[in-house]
């Protein structure tokens, strides 16, 4: 069932808020160099799942393993330092800092020493370089000096992704990265994610079915907090239950 090389593995992961079971015994795995998309109707528990994986929320039961290490119940910063980066569904950047500073600060998180207090932050070339390449990947290089609050919505979503890239993660948890983006921007981000999947593992929450089927190596469908089906995109597309519950007529008929 579970591959020994799985990068991220959840077993029976559950989270209840009082009487409401938001995530119901979800077992899934994220393999290296894979894009694993999680889809499902609103309220299916997808965002809660991301929060569980990122450590923002503690599971009620079940376990999470990262490269075999049990990270269940770990705080978000500890998980992040292990090489997991996440983006937020509602854009969560530093509005008053420039795009460059947002990325530089993200890159600086790899700093091990707490009390680096003497040299100016911007004199550390490794973080500057990491920030610049992250911005370049997200096509934000031209906007480096712009404060984040002046960015368009799509640019801000791109900045979210750039920030997570600046931390040189092994795993990316992306919560609806394309939400609210125009067609052009979406195409660029989809291409970026395709490139990234070569050496990152990506867990992708998305509603944009075109993007999902263009990117996903594996699909998991969640409904009411539980996994309805999980498998290859073609298998999921053919799954009658999934069609009834979620996909309907919006499914692209041909694989790319």
């Amino acid at each position, binding site marked *: 069932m579970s591959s020994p090389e799985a990068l991220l593995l959840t077993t029976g992961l559950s989270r209840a808020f009082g009487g409401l079971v938001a995530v119901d015994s979800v077992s899934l795995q994220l393999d290296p160099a894979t894009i694993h998309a999680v889809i499902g109707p609103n309220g299916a528990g997808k965002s809660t799942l991301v929060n569980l994986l990122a450590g923002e929320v503690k599971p009620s039961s079940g376990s999470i393993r990262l490269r075999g290490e049990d990270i269940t119940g770990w705080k*978000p910063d500890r998980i992040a*330092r292990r090489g997991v980066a996440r983006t937020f569904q509602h854009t969560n950047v530093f509005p008053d800092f420039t795009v460059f500073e947002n990325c530089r600060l993200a890159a*600086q998180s790899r700093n091990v020493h*707490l009390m*680096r207090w003497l040299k100016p932050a911007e004199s550390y070339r490794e973080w500057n370089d990491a920030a610049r390449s992250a911005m370049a990947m997200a096509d934000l290089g031209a906007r480096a000096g*712009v404060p984040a609050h002046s960015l368009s919505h799509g640019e801000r979503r791109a900045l979210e992704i750039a*920030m997570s890239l600046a931390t040189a993660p092994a795993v990316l948890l992306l919560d609806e990265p394309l939400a609210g983006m125009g067609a052009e921007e979406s195409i660029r981000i989809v291409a970026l994610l395709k490139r990234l999947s070569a050496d990152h593992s990506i867990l992708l929450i998305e509603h944009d079915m075109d993007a999902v089927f263009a990117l996903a190596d594996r699909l998991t469908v969640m409904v009411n907090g539980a996994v309805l089906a999980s498998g290859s995109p073609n298998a999921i597309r053919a799954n009658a239950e999934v069609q009834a519950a979620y996909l309907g007529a919006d499914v692209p008929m041909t694989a790319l």
Partner: protein
Amino acid sequence: MADPEHPRRSTVSDRVITWWLVLGILALAIFPAIAEQFYLQLITKIMILSIFALSLDLLVGYAGLVSLGHAAFFGVAAYTLALAAPASDPPNLWLTLPLALATSAVIALVIGALVIRTAGVYFIMATLAFAQMVYYFFHDTRLAGGSDGIYVNSRPSLEIGSIDLAQDLHFYYLVLAALAGVFILLGIVLRSPFGRALQGIKANEQRMRALGYPTLRYKLAAFVLAGTLAGLAGYLAAAKEGYVNPELLAWHQSGMVLVMLILGGMGTLFGAVIGAFSYVLLQEWFSNLTKHWQLLMGSFIVLAVLVLPRGLAGLGRSIALRRRLSASRDDVEP
């Protein structure tokens, strides 16, 4: 024009800041030549309070930690000097100052460790309550003179050449050097990775954690640093007045320094100094008007909060911003 390779929040203001800093220090350095004894002492007092305000600015303005118990570290250092001072000889500055700073740092570490996991209002209330505990410790016990306080019989000695800190003029320059030193130190720290992380934490702590920063450790470090610098101010205050009592630790002191920050504006370092000057000068003016000056001060504070959301320094900034905006109205942002 901002350089994208090394973007700062504004390259212009950096040069301006340095100029104002140099001018300020020069002005303060020349001041004694033209001023009478009374004003010398007044400005010394203001400079000491500026250090106190700067230490709190680090905490409130940059790390986003609103502490209502900062006077505890101020007072503890003052008491350390008073208790460590020998009966007849002047205390040695090189021995007593590090001791006082260390005491403040330790107390800050202990209290900080207890309160740092609390957030928002809990933090405010908990810092206040722990500071009160320290206050009651000094007020109710006979360890350090109780509510009567104790005297510091002579000013510390520097043991360098003919510098005699008992002379107000020499002491003035010592305090000026300390103020300049603290200002420069904070400037360096705030530009460092540590300082940037603090500002990130203030802006969005959740995001910082999601990026992998152990935010609690950063906040605790800031708390201890701020407490130590407050201790420096407290030491100088005790040395200046020659007397310490529990009121140095009272939460009115903590409230007062917070008021200075809002008057001057937080998160600008200069604002702390402006705020200290404004507060003391205001207090002098109000005291001359009536013995019930606290009524005037209280009303002023209420008005200031309602009318000046970013303090006097913020006022200056928004004027400058408006001028820059109207000047560049024809520039199209890419």
